[in-house]
């Protein structure tokens, strides 16, 4: 019996070439005529952790009553997710609001009126010993100028024009008049890290370059994989500065936290951080998770908000 299961599974997973069919949703094109919700005919794609995160699949179900037909693990807002959504392997995806490929592909970001997703303001997390007045001043000046749209523009340059993140960072500092040489951070030596997606890299480059201009001795350790890899390094002191997102770092530190507005999240984060780490000013710029669908899907089901996914399909 187990052999049969194995063979059937092998056939289903490999040979049908389908990301579908696990629960009999024949295809999104035919909709589910049987009176299910819109979501029950759709396949959702996103990173593995979105499946279990409180504001991920469980959150969507709890807040909006949205239940997808199936979950396909793709990547964290990267090429796999975008490609899969674009080419119809999945119908809805977890992408990030600053992602230029949303605009490039005419994807539709579904509104989140009930704030399922936590606020995701950009925030530098820094080791307390390195948080001198000078470094704080340099970094907070940057934080004050970061906007969501501005971030999207930076990302576009990297992703679509293939510009070097460090060059983009320098260019931005120049544009914002933040590239002046000085001595604010003189005598500080620190290691700046970043996760392995372009936005995080360019933010780290911006921090690092500005501090370097102000006399700090900076070492870059960019493109470190996921948070599970870099956070312990940050905590243990082998990294000193990291561009973070208020919502995700809070969720990482305190999985039970339910706050979602920018200020609540920021306040909760300050409490959740260990004693040796401190969050500097949060920026207006936000890069939050979003449920994204293609234009065709949005039009077909008349989708504007995540809540619409829970409607009965026509």
């Amino acid at each position, binding site marked *: 019996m187990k052999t049969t299961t194995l063979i059937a599974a092998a056939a289903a997973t490999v040979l049908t070439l389908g*990301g*579908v069919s696990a629960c009999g949703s024949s295809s999104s094109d035919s909709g589910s005529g049987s009176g299910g919700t819109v979501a029950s005919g759709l396949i959702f794609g996103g990173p593995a952790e979105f499946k279990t995160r409180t504001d991920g699949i469980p959150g969507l179900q709890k807040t909006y009553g949205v239940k997808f037909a199936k979950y396909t693990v793709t990547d964290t807002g990267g090429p*796999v997710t975008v490609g899969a959504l674009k080419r119809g*392997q999945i119908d809805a995806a977890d992408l990030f609001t600053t992602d230029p490929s949303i605009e490039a592909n005419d994807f539709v970001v579904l509104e989140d009126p009930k704030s399922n997703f936590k606020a995701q303001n950009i925030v530098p997390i820094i080791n307390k010993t390195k948080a001198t007045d000078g470094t704080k001043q340099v970094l907070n000046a940057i934080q004050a100028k970061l906007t969501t749209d501005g971030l999207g523009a930076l990302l576009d340059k990297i992703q679509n024009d293939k510009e070097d993140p460090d060059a983009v960072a320098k260019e931005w500092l120049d544009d914002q008049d933040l590239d002046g040489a000085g001595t604010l951070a003189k005598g500080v030596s620190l290691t700046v890290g970043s996760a392995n997606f372009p936005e995080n890299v360019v933010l780290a480059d911006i921090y690092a370059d500005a501090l370097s201009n102000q006399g700090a001795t900076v070492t870059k350790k960019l493109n470190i994989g996921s948070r599970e890899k870099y956070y312990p390094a940050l905590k243990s002191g082998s990294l000193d500065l990291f561009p973070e997102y208020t919502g995700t770092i809070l969720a990482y530190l305190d999985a039970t936290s339910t706050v979602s507005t920018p200020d609540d999240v920021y306040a909760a984060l300050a409490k959740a951080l260990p004693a040796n780490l401190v969050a500097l000013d949060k920026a207006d710029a936000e890069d939050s998770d979003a449920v994204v669908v293609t234009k065709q899907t949005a039009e077909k089901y008349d989708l504007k908000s995540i809540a619409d996914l829970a409607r009965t399909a026509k």
Partner: protein
Amino acid sequence: MIGSVLGWLLDPEHWRSTPFDTGIWAQLGAHVGFTLIALAIAVLLALPAGLVIGHTGRGSWLVSAANAVRALPTVGVLVLLVVVISPHFYGRTNAGFLIPTEIVLVVLAVPPILSNAYAGVQNVPPQVRDAAFGMGMTGPQVLGRVELPNALPLIFSGFRSAMLQVIATATIASYVTLGGLGRFIYDGLAQKDYPQMIGGAVLVAALALISDLLVALVQRYAVSRGVSRRFRTDTGPDSRTAVLVEEDVR
């Protein structure tokens, strides 16, 4: 740590599939599926080629070329192929990721099978081949009735090496969204679910081990005792010639 890994492995919930979570049985099936497809293609390509090259002595550059392919970084080739191939597939299909993955796995499996089939035929003692021709066997008869049976130990060792590499490497299918046991490793890493991640690694190792045992069993019956020298009177160590068959990346 060991306890929580065991707990994860022994939880029947983890073996069943739900719409959101593909269970161990299904991922095991997918993993076996990837492996079987890759090995079948690799054997179809490499075994006849290796036998014929060994038999005729012509085209041995192909063996060297296949071995040089081992220098290719598996991940790099996978990424390149995904980037090239996946945009051509639309709709509910994972072919855009499956095809690159299978190509990478086949590329990985071909060199050991090819070079061992070649070496196996080459290693048949010249006087045995001479006797076979001298008795009036035709070329294909010599290959099929004499060279192949004598090359079997090496062919099996090449196949086993290829199989272990493919099973280990099939985990990177999950790097490009496919299923398979690698899913547990990558998902466990992302979800900070270390028992799941280690459990996945344990499952891969177990699959490799069990597959190797099964093939060893087949080998026992497929290879003539005259070649394997497993005689009842012989108490010496197993005389399987372990030619360097170069395991590679997983």
